[in-house]
């Protein structure tokens, strides 16, 4: 467990210094843990686990857009669990339940078996449709068609810089829309 947390911290440090492959590995590694914690929280609040994947995606977006608040000299896991806990509480509160989420929920799940994705998430996909066409096209090209930034730029006759801007704006407004709903 300790080892895994140290590995995350190392991956995040590489990610912050520009290593996108390390970042990808890190996000893949934390997802099952987040998923298990989201399920546990939902079950404890007496709700169905079909929302778990939406919560996971919500957490991943927040991690991404707020990663500049992580201090590279601090361990990564407490920072991650603070964000995850916030997002979980927020989701449950929006459904008007009294909830108690303990930070230990997240630490405990580190030891759990990784959970597989079950119900398909709908919230991000639904909000994606409301984005401006340019941002939506770029996001879809990269997410669904697995195109690189370069290929996406060629496909839409945009500069790579413009693709990067559209991608980042798309993710930002997606997150804003999820919060507003």
């Amino acid at each position: 467990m300790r080892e895994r947390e140290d590995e995350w911290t190392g991956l995040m440090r590489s990610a912050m210094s520009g290593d996108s492959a390390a970042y990808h590995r890190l996000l893949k590694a934390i997802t099952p843990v987040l998923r298990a914690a989201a399920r546990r929280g939902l079950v404890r609040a007496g709700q169905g686990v079909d929302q778990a994947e939406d919560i996971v995606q919500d957490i991943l977006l927040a991690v991404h857009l707020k990663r500049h608040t992580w201090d590279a000299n601090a361990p990564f896991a407490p920072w991650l669990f603070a964000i995850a806990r916030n997002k979980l509480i927020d989701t449950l509160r929006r459904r008007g339940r009294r909830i108690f989420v303990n930070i230990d929920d997240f630490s405990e799940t580190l030891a759990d078996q990784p959970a597989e994705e079950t119900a398909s998430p709908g919230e991000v996909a639904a909000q994606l449709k409301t984005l401006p066409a340019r941002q939506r096209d770029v996001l879809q090209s990269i997410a669904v068609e697995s195109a690189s930034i370069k290929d996406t730029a060629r496909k839409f006759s945009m500069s790579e810089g413009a693709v990067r801007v559209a991608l980042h704006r798309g993710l930002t407004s997606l997150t804003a829309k999820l919060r507003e709903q």
Partner: protein
Amino acid sequence: MDTDQLIKTLAADNTHRARPVSVVLALALLAAAPVSILMFVAELGVRPDVMTAMHNPFFDLKFAVTLALASAAVTISLHLARPEASLRGFVWLLAIPAGLLVAGISGEMMMPQRLPMMTRLVGHNSKVCMTAVPLMSLPLLAASLFGLRHGAPTRPAVAGAMAGLLSAGLAATLYASHCTDDSPLFVATWYSIGTALIAALGALIGSRVLKY
């Protein structure tokens, strides 16, 4: 979009680098400061006897208190902008401006009195003080909240209150150079009321806008 696809998209955006919260907060405050200063210059202005007043330790103490409040609030705000931050070990910073005030009040008590206590406390400018400090705080409060929105505070209301203290501390620094009431008793009473008002407003707005 399934989660793997989302992860792929986030990884593709890893090249985007956001500015640190401290930089965004500083830039926002720099942009808002001229508005507050303009309000100050247009309506109040520095008191005419400022050169003599500077030799009065109680006049100088006002700046020590307001600047200590502003710096403590900046430090705590930036700390709270991190999601895993707890208040522990940081709240005591707010004891510095409070301690300075208490020291000032005790110091004044020991001086041979020229004016009775109530006269010093009520002063001449209490109404102006209670209006000017909150009003000049408003542009700075908006800027602080904007800056902190760039962070990820787990307690949005507390972070908002700190944004309020920070902007009130800065506005009170401006106001202190206008006000002829130098008694620490006056400062402890009227400055505090204006500051508390803005802190409460900051907490109220913060609880809405600082959620991430």
